[in-house]
Each structure stands twice: as structure tokens, then as C-alpha cells.
């Protein structure tokens, strides 16, 4: 197949470099995350971390109990996925497989930072090897690590991953990050309830809406209860009430 040697317009359809040194497919993958129209936020405090995401039921006929973007990966770690749902399912399946394989080989649970790193490395291979496109989804993982306590990590389609004090993904990512920066500047050592309150307040603020308990999902890990778990609707209701009373 002869193409005359220049990038000949392929730089937009597979992950090769453009003349400025950019990878267009990776940049387009970031845009694909916003297609879902949802936003997710993660916050980490002194000894706990939580993630929150919107919960929109796409159709009245859908069984709402089956709609969720929060997934458990190991006993102490789980994630919220933002973006294309099919790609999200694939990444979560892979995360679960990698974590189980790690446990089988090494005899202890895969720490959240290692899970994130492994998924990020797999994501990087999609940006370098032409046979598979980057995934159009962003993973925000929280977990409890024996050595390091509560952890918050974010993995994006470029294969970049990093630990965060707070982060967000999705349509309102920029606004949300601005809000979170102000909060973290004031207090980066939040306790468990402050962490949850900050996450809810951030999402509420950028979406300019008050939520009903069925419209958000929240998941939490903490020193007090290191098992990754989703809050029940009753618990979410409690938290929303606390927030509205505070205001």
C-alpha cells in the first residue's frame, strides 16, 4: 500500500502523529466522553474517598435498577465510568479480569493505583498500535489501600493516569474542576462527611440543580469502612438533606 510518505490524511483516522505532534484520534476520544452528557466527580479527603455521578434513566421502559455507572472492581476498589457505555463496560471487564489475575498470581488484592496503572498502560497501547482505537470513556477509581489509605485515581483515553485530591470527568468537567480547586484550596484534609458533601455540592453547583436521591449515585471507601460500597437511596437522601440544611 503506497501512500507517498506523508501522513496523507490518515492522522485523523488512526493514531499516528499529526504535523504538530498531536494524536487526533486521542483528542477525538476525549470529545466522545462528552457524548453521554453526564458528569462524574471524585473527591478524596484525609481518610476517605467518594465518587458521585448523575443517574439518568434513558427511557421509561428501562428497568432503572439495572442502570448504573458505578462498578465494583475488587473488594476495596471500584470505579465510576463516564462516556461511551459500551467502551466503559469493556474497560470495567478488563479491570476486573486484571485484578482477579493479579490476586491469583500474587496472592493479595490488586491495589487501586496498580489497577489504574494497568488500565492506563492498556489505554496507551490503543494510542500507539493501529489495530484498536482509544476508548471513549474516562475511569475514576476509588479504593482503599492497606499501605496508603483512601486513594483516588483517574484514567483517560490518552493512557495518562494520576492520583488526585479531587477530579471530574464528562460534560461539565471544567466547571467542576474549578469548583473543586477552590474547595481543596480551603481544606485538603476533609473528613468523611465533608468529602461526600463536597462531591454532592460540586455536582449540584455545576449542573445548577437540586437532586432527588434517585438522580445520583454515590460510592464510598474510608478507613472506617474500607469496603467499596454504593450508598443506598436512604443514605443519599440523608446526605442531600444535610447539604440543603447547611445552605
Amino acid at each position, binding site marked *: 500500500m503506497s501512500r507517498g*510518505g506523508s501522513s496523507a490524511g490518515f492522522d485523523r483516522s488512526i493514531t499516528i502523529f499529526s504535523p504538530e*505532534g498531536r494524536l487526533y484520534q486521542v483528542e477525538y476520544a476525549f470529545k466522545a466522553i462528552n457524548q453521554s452528557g453526564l458528569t462524574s466527580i471524585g473527591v478524596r479527603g484525609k481518610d476517605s474517598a467518594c465518587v458521585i455521578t448523575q443517574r439518568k434513566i434513558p427511557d421509561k421502559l428501562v428497568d432503572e435498577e439495572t442502570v448504573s455507572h458505578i462498578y465494583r472492581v475488587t473488594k476495596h476498589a471500584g470505579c465510576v465510568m463516564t462516556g461511551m457505555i459500551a467502551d466503559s463496560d469493556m474497560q470495567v471487564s478488563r479491570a476486573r479480569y486484571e485484578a482477579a489475575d493479579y490476586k491469583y498470581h500474587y496472592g493479595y488484592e490488586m491495589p487501586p493505583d496498580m489497577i489504574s496503572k494497568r488500565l492506563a*498502560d*492498556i489505554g*496507551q497501547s490503543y494510542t500507539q498500535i*493501529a489495530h484498536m482505537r482509544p476508548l471513549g470513556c474516562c475511569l475514576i477509581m476509588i479504593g482503599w489501600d492497606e499501605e496508603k489509605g483512601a486513594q483516588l485515581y483517574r484514567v483517560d483515553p490518552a493512557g495518562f493516569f494520576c*492520583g488526585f485530591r479531587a477530579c471530574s470527568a464528562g460534560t461539565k468537567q471544567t466547571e467542576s*474542576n474549578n469548583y*473543586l*480547586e477552590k474547595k481543596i484550596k480551603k481544606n485538603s484534609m476533609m473528613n468523611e462527611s465533608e468529602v461526600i458533601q463536597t462531591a454532592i455540592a460540586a455536582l449540584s453547583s455545576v449542573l445548577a440543580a437540586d437532586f432527588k436521591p434517585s438522580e445520583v449515585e454515590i460510592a464510598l471507601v474510608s478507613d472506617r469502612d474500607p469496603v467499596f460500597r454504593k450508598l443506598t437511596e436512604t443514605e443519599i437522601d440523608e446526605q442531600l438533606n444535610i447539604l440543603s440544611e447547611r445552605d
Partner: protein
Amino acid sequence: YYITNNLSAMSERYSFSLTTFSPSGKLVQIEYAIAAVAAGAPSIGIKSKTGVVLAAEKKTKSILYDDTTITKMEMITKHCGMTYSGMGPDFRLLVRKARKIAQQYYLQFDEEIPVSQLVQRLANVMQEYTHSGGVRPFGVSLLVAGLTRTHHISYSAILRGRISLGKLLQWERTM
């Protein structure tokens, strides 16, 4: 499904190289990869009679990032390490490959890999990605520093796919 880690198995589906010559004889994908490096944060290495120092800028865009989790300086073995400018995810891959190369050498020869050998093999890996089917070049340039068995200080840079040994090699964003 399963994913193989074998480069040739994956590139079978793309049996042609994505890095090809332009009419003027240039490999433009490599030039563009260097542009990606130039867009990255600067890193510097300096070697003296008694040691080598590597430095890299680690500027995070906001306080939300936990910068204790960002590693721009990575250890390959106890006696050598490396840093980079360019694309972080590509660097992580090269760190993994470098560590494996070092351990394979140790397994075979029962001695620590000389830095020159490590750099040679790593540069070879980077070259393969400019040659093989279905892959793009790495968007990183590396600075590798270490101490060999005879306590000779060694310092190499893999820039533009070529190895340069240096007493002092400074490398900035504009390069």
C-alpha cells in the same frame, strides 16, 4: 477475548509500516514525534567527574493533582535510571521495557547491565516502532544515567532515535 503483548502478532493486521519516506527522503512521522517531544516539559542531564544529575520539570496544572503520584524520574535498576520529555504514557511503556531488558541481561550474564548496553537495546526498541507495521513512533526522548560495575559514570540520551553519549547534554523544550 484476550490481548496478546506480542508486537508482531498485533501488527499482522496492519502489515504495512505507518512510518514511510516522503518524496524528499524524510521520515515525517518521526519528525512529528519530535514535535510532540518539544511540546513537553523540559528535562536536563549533567555529568561531572564524580556523578550525574538528571532533572525534570514536574509542573501540575492545578492543585487537584496529587503530585506524589506523578513520577517523571524512574529507576531501571539500582544503578541506573531515566527521565524524559514528551508523552507520559509512552514513557511508562519504555520504563517497563527497560526494566525487563535489564533483568533479562542479569539473568543471562549474572551482572548488572552496563548503561551503554541498556541504551543500545532500548534505542533498538524505539527504532522497531518506527519500522514495524501498525505502530507509531514513541513521542518521547530519554535521558538515561547510571553507574557501571567499574564505577564509570555513564550518561546517554536517546534523542530523535539516535544515541548520544555526553559529558553535558542539555535539552530544552525548543529542541
